[in-house]
């Protein structure tokens, strides 16, 4: 069997105020992407964007979005993504931009990348701890995360959030 080939774009939503990330939801991001594509590429782009485009995964805590595009036209759709300046969600306009981290052929490769990326983020954030005690607390919090049956990635996401709150 031959499957439908897609490209998965792993994007990071960058905002100024991180607490507003929690307002994001799938439909808001999908709407913003569709509007941007229609603005840049017109009706043709909007037509391409309605074939198998969807938001596969959204982590509102870390602001990670996984978008699926058809492989044949992902480049033209991707070129519209830099023109997103805000996402409208729950009646509020969140100024933000999307930063593409990884382009993968399957969700699996994107997930592998994301695990590695989040570990990297943790290492970047750890030196920002104010004192040794805080560092210990975070390390303990990571070790205490037991999500049996779920993947490793989520536990790492959680530990990041804890640290964000402490800062």
């Amino acid at each position, binding site marked *: 069997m031959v499957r439908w080939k897609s490209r998965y774009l792993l994007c*990071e939503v*960058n905002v*100024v105020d991180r607490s507003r990330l929690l307002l994001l939801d799938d439909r808001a991001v999908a709407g913003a992407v569709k509007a941007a594509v229609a*603005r*840049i590429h017109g009706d043709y782009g909007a037509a391409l964007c309605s074939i198998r485009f969807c938001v596969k995964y959204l982590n509102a805590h870390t602001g990670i979005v996984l978008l699926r595009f058809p492989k044949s036209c992902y*480049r*033209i759709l*991707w*070129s519209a*993504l*830099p*023109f997103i*300046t805000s996402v409208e969600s729950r009646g509020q306009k969140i*100024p*933000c*931009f*999307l*930063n*593409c*981290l990884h*382009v993968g052929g399957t969700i699996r490769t994107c997930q592998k990348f994301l695990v590695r990326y989040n570990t*990297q983020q943790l290492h*970047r954030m750890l030196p920002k701890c104010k004192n040794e005690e805080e560092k210990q607390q975070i390390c303990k919090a990571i070790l205490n995360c037991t999500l049996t049956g779920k993947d490793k990635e989520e536990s790492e996401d959680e530990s990041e959030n804890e640290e964000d709150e402490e800062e």
Partner: protein
Amino acid sequence: MSVFMDLNLCSSADRSGLRSLIETAAHLGFSTVAINYVLEPTAKKKPEIPTPTPISDLMDGLPIVQGRSRPIRVLNRLTVVMSDASHFRLNAAEYRHFDLLAVQPTTEKLFHAACLLYDVDIICISLTEKLPFFFKRAPVNGAVDRGVVFEVSYSAAIRDSTLRRYTFTNAFSLMDTCKGKNVILSSAAEKALELRGPYDVTNLGLLFGLSNGDAKEAISSTCRSVLLHAETRKTASGVIYTMKSSSESSCQERAPPECEAPAAKRAKPT
């Protein structure tokens, strides 16, 4: 993964804004950025050349670049907007404070001169309005031969729809003339939210008429050659480097071997 650079961040008096710009750039994975100071001479009074703020004043610790272990490198750059030939003075002492030197010609004659004569690193083209001249092959080829690059900045395209049209028009006509070589893509961002990630910028090059490889070069290796070009501007043909000796310093002996390295890397002297 190659080294990404963004050679145009707008300077502003607002220090915290500039700081957040640099932090965002480091987060996105740019390992070198340049802060741009614009000098716009008018006919009446003599303009004051801005002096760059030292980076150490700006922030105490430079942020670490995403995916690397080094802190971000911050340079200073001066852009001279020219509407008359007298606006750009060759070898002015004030220009020496800056690491990079760029001109933005507004007439065809000055564009010709900037491409073939002036000792600059970057030629900016104001992409946000209808250009008063066409790009001709001869000056553009001359600039490519001399190692001077053209700059296309994308943040105006993000801001507004009319500006976007002009940007695409002008970028396309530039790419037609120089065939995608010697072009750098930069942000010209004023706020942190106007920056874009390096992979997004590469893909944006598709809309500017660059091929895939050329677009990637436009934010990595071409930028590097700009930096090397800027280094040789301070030397005589990239061979000899002079500096003022402070009376009893013995660090003079160390100077020559240091500057031989960039000279050896350079293929052609200016």
